């Protein structure tokens, strides 16, 4: 029973690469409009979990439900159209398209907007993500920081109901981080559910209401951020502090 209320539900999902178990029996429900944070050491399987949710990888076992509907066999395109948007940890811009066109593709395909509706939608997102001044610049020439912004903006352009953000705050200055958090809060305030993988803890906890800890592909804990961070096993494993 993936919870009739959940917008996204993972049921006992497992994935191995050969002998390496990168995802082990992960189950959780995401409520509509909820913001969930994911933390865990490098190689814990965080990005893999996103790839399973978006359909870039097929689980060896378990099911993924969207609005209670089993989408485990669906392609990334279908899942995007059903409302899952994502950013990539390593930015994947369309190099020869402009920043605006990067968003336009997302709005026309995943966002299913018409030629008349899409431009205003994209312009709005460009402004909210601080990319408006770079709109007609080729995406391939952007520095890393703006590539990460573009990842976020393009994911937003697909008009997702669940947006998956993979380490978009790394390397930002304090001021930029505050801006980013404001943008994500803004997305959240519009009712979009968020799953955010982040190493920058203070940014993460200022947005999410629940925190999940992944370790060796296993869900170690999930719950209120304060309680999770206070748990001895989390402190030991994630922060490398002996209890």
């Amino acid at each position, binding site marked *: 029973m993936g919870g009739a209320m959940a917008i996204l539900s993972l049921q006992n999902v497992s994935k191995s690469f050969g002998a390496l178990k990168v995802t082990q029996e992960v189950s959780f429900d995401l409520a509509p409009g909820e913001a969930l944070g994911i933390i865990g050491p490098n190689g814990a399987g965080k990005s893999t979990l996103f790839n399973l949710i978006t359909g870039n990888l097929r689980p060896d076992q378990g099911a993924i439900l969207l609005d209670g509907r089993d989408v485990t066999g669906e392609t990334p395109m279908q899942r995007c159209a059903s409302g899952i948007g994502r950013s990539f940890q390593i930015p994947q811009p*369309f190099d020869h398209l*402009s920043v*605006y066109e990067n968003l*336009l593709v997302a709005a026309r*395909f*995943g966002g299913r907007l018409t030629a008349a509706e899409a*431009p205003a939608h994209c312009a709005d997102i460009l*402004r909210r993500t601080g990319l408006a001044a770079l*709109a*007609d610049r080729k995406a391939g020439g952007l520095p890393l920081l703006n590539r990460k912004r573009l990842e976020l903006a393009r994911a937003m352009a697909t008009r997702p109901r669940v947006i998956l953000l993979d380490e978009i705050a790394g390397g930002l200055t304090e001021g930029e981080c505050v801006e980013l958090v404001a943008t994500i809060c803004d997305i959240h305030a519009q009712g979009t559910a968020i799953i955010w993988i982040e190493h920058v803890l203070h940014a993460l906890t200022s947005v999410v209401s629940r925190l999940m800890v992944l370790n060796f592909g296993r869900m170690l804990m999930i719950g209120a951020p304060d309680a999770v961070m206070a748990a001895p096993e989390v402190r030991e494993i994630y922060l490398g502090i002996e209890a």
Partner: protein
Amino acid sequence: MGKTFTPLILPLLVLGMALVPVIGSRALVQDLFMVLCLLVLALNWNMLAGFAGLVSVGQQAFVGIGAYAMFASVILWGMDPLAGLLVGGLVAMALAVPVAFFTFRLNGAYFAIGTWVVADIARLAFSQWKALGGGTGTSLPKGAAQEMLGVATVRGLIGGSKAAAVDALTYWLALALVVVLLLASWAFLRSRMGLGLQAVRDNALAARAVGVDPLRLKALVFLLTAFGTGICGGLLFIQIGRISPGAAFSLLDWTAFVIFIVVIGGIGTLPGPVIGVLVFYGLERLLADYGTVYLIVLGLIGIAIMLFARRGLWGGFVQRTGLDPLPLSHAAPAAPAPTRS
């Protein structure tokens, strides 16, 4: 400048080209007919390789299929050669479905080899077709081209012999194909699907993540270009009047030269094939008497461009001048979006 430049120069150029059968010699008309047909093939191949990332070296399959279907329509089913053209395009497109089914499982160099193998199988298969002359081929029935729809009208228009009228008509059809293809390519690339195609070319992983289905778009381009290539095959062989498996499925004539044209002109750019075909024609006039040397020079130029000017002559021109009379880009809306409360 780009904005006023294109709408003016293109119609003028087309008009000038259209006048060739009226004022030029028959030899010139026949020469330029070949050039226009190569351009049609180049526009199709550029769409395929330059925009859909499908680097096929087997497009001669669709030239041959289109040509044979046209011959079958005329000889076996008694149709007009012009109707045969359409049959040629449709049959080529229909056969592109199973071809795509097999070759789309292959990537990169394997796809290229796969398409070449398919084209050779097609050549062998058509040489078994006894009703169309088997391995030695056959000719269009006497007068079939000269009784063709439109020839009488053309003759009334420009006078001269029936044969000259056939040349003029096929020439105009080739010119019309070029214009239609150029405009259709431009419109397609600026459309939603064209944008998706460019996204796939840049990054297939990200394209999928924003809802673009790469396979669907590539298959669509593969089928459409098979149609265009098939029609061109039929048209070529109405003019040539005689078909054989070797000529209809020629890798050199219908694919290798075409690849050369697109690569020197600028792969993945719209005007690239036009520039490329001009250079190709110029070189041919200069070097045609030298036979093999001509082919070697073509090959060397092609390799030099691939190494030192990847986007070809047109790409280099755009880079240097910033001028692009056929822009594919979508400018961001200028006015600030309405603010949300």
